[in-house]
């Protein structure tokens, strides 16, 4: 599989009364046609990565370093005008709450179509394609004339997915797409996404704080903590052999469908991003920390060709926290 999007040393800073570096030197590659999962607690910076990648950072947010190579172009350096042709046609977005992601005063049809029209599709063509798109996500095309408040939560999220597919983008970013839905609807949506992904072969960047969901859908997974990536690997490796104590903690903090085990959380809470700890940022909460963790930032170590993690326990042939 070839690389679609290569994020290199990405840093994002929010300017305010104090500057906050919400994302610090992040490296990620998303390959064509894969579902790439990104997990972490609230406030770890995963949504900031989404905003940087889609160039939707608020006015107080700034990409302060690194590059985002997408299909040969560095998105981090594109002007707004240069970014516009890529929006929706190459990268589209499904956000957390479909309720607030749809404009309440426009019909579903108008909202699916205006994205297409903005990229040169004629209005008539857009309308007929919008009907097909709804059929793809199993929503009655008659709904094109409905307003968002007339649809159920699950239907709205399907509409969002249909909308994101409109211009056959190469990458769909899904930021907590199922968080607001109940478990049954969640499962239906996930199944639909996988099915559509097989059919149209787009890549997905799937953001969630729900590890069990991620393990069920993602090909590869990255774990984020306090603005940094602490571990990346194929989903099975992350599930069966996590090498970072934080990943291990995350995995133990949700109920497994397959085995009966004790639920264990991670004591403490993430550090303030205003003044993150020196050394390993997870050290203050880490159950297996070493002396050097507090002062020296751990290097990223390749555990296998597809798996790397940043932990001092992996240094000099160590096996990590297995």
């Amino acid at each position, binding site marked *: 599989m070839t690389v679609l999007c290569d994020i290199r040393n990405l840093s994002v800073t929010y300017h305010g009364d104090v500057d906050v570096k919400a994302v610090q030197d992040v490296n990620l590659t998303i390959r064509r046609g894969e579902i790439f999962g990104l997990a972490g607690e609230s406030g770890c910076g995963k949504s900031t990565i989404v905003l940087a990648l*889609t160039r939707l950072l608020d006015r107080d947010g700034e990409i302060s370093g690194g590059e985002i190579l997408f299909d040969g172009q560095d998105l981090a350096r594109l002007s707004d005008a240069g970014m516009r042709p890529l929006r929706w046609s190459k990268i589209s*977005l499904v956000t957390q709450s479909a309720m607030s992601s749809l404009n309440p005063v426009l019909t579903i049809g108008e909202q699916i179509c205006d994205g297409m029209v903005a990229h040169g599709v004629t209005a008539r063509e857009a309308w007929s394609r919008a009907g097909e798109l709804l059929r793809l996500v199993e929503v009655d095309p008659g709904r094109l004339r409905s307003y968002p408040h007339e649809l159920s939560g699950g239907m709205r999220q399907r509409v969002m997915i249909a909308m994101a597919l409109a211009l056959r983008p190469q990458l769909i970013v899904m930021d907590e797409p199922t968080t607001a839905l109940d478990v049954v609807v969640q499962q239906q949506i996930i199944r639909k996404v996988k099915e559509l992904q097989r059919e149209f072969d787009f890549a997905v960047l799937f953001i969630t704080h729900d590890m069990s969901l991620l393990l069920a859908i993602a090909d590869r997974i990255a774990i984020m903590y306090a603005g940094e990536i602490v571990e990346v690997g194929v989903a099975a490796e992350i599930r069966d052999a996590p090498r970072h104590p934080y990943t291990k903690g995350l995995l133990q903090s949700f109920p497994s469908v397959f085995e009966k085990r004790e639920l264990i959380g991670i004591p403490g809470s993430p550090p303030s991003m205003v003044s993150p700890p020196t050394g390993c940022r997870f050290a203050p909460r880490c159950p297996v920390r070493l002396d050097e963790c507090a002062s020296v930032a751990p290097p990223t170590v390749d555990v296998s060709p597809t798996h790397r993690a940043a932990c001092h326990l992996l240094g000099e042939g160590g096996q990590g926290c297995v």
Partner: protein
Amino acid sequence: MRYLLRRAAFYAVALWAAVTLNFALPRMMPGNPMQVLVAKFRGRINPDALYAYAKLFGLDRHVSLWAQYWQYIGQLLHGNLGVSLGLYPETVSAALMQALPWTLFLLGLSTLISFILGTLLGMVSAWRRGSFLDAVAPTVFTLTGSFPYFWLALLLLYFFAFQLPWFPLGHAYGSSTSGWSFANLPDILYHAVLPALTIVVTSIGGWLLSMRNNMINTLSEEYVKVAKAKGLSDRRIMMTYAARNAILPNVTSFALSLGFILSGAILTEVVFSYPGLGYTLFQAVGNMDYPMMQGALLLIALAVLVANFIADLVYVKLDPRARQG
């Protein structure tokens, strides 16, 4: 539809309250209202006029308050507002019907201008946060919004009608023209400039500020972010996504604002001797013309209720959620 019915029911109750209050007003005068009136006018008034007033409010007959009340409502339903004490034998409704178009014209024109201008300025200020416009417009118009209407009217009159005789000193039309006709329109507009300017300058800040605040809120909505992700033009994002939603609370707050603007318009009419409802009311106060005062109050209340119902219709047109809820 249910939404409109509910609103209509509310306006009916409000109108009933206004009518009842009006019925109660002469009874708030200390002592017997008839004796008070007779004493006040000391023969300066046609007894027939006084009698008509007493009859309308049932002050002449020794029937129960309840019967008087129903009699009053019956009279109102027939459009009978009594006879003017100051302009006897002219009826109150005839005098008010002459004044009403002027107020509707002046107030309608200036409210429309100030709503559109204020909303547009608020929209652009919010869209261009931190720009020169955003730094200046909200503060400047907040300040002009706290100007007392009548004083601004006096200043405009002093500078632009007295010192610089660019505009007339008052009235709605010149001596050569009289009343409404298409040919008179330039003259009528010419006379309306200063009073309208007074109302626009003092009321624009409210629309601007609330639109700016609403717009800042909608700009942080997810759907605006999605619109941007879709690659829509800035113009479409600003108009159809942000402003289209931000304007909704402004339409709902129309009721509140109209009351304030109307109060200002009354004072403005007085300063410019503009022959609308406010000026009529003011003159009625000077003449102790109670039937005229009360008729004007009732008509103003009715006009405000109708204007609000129109605002509701616009709201339903703009917000699909109101259509079924």
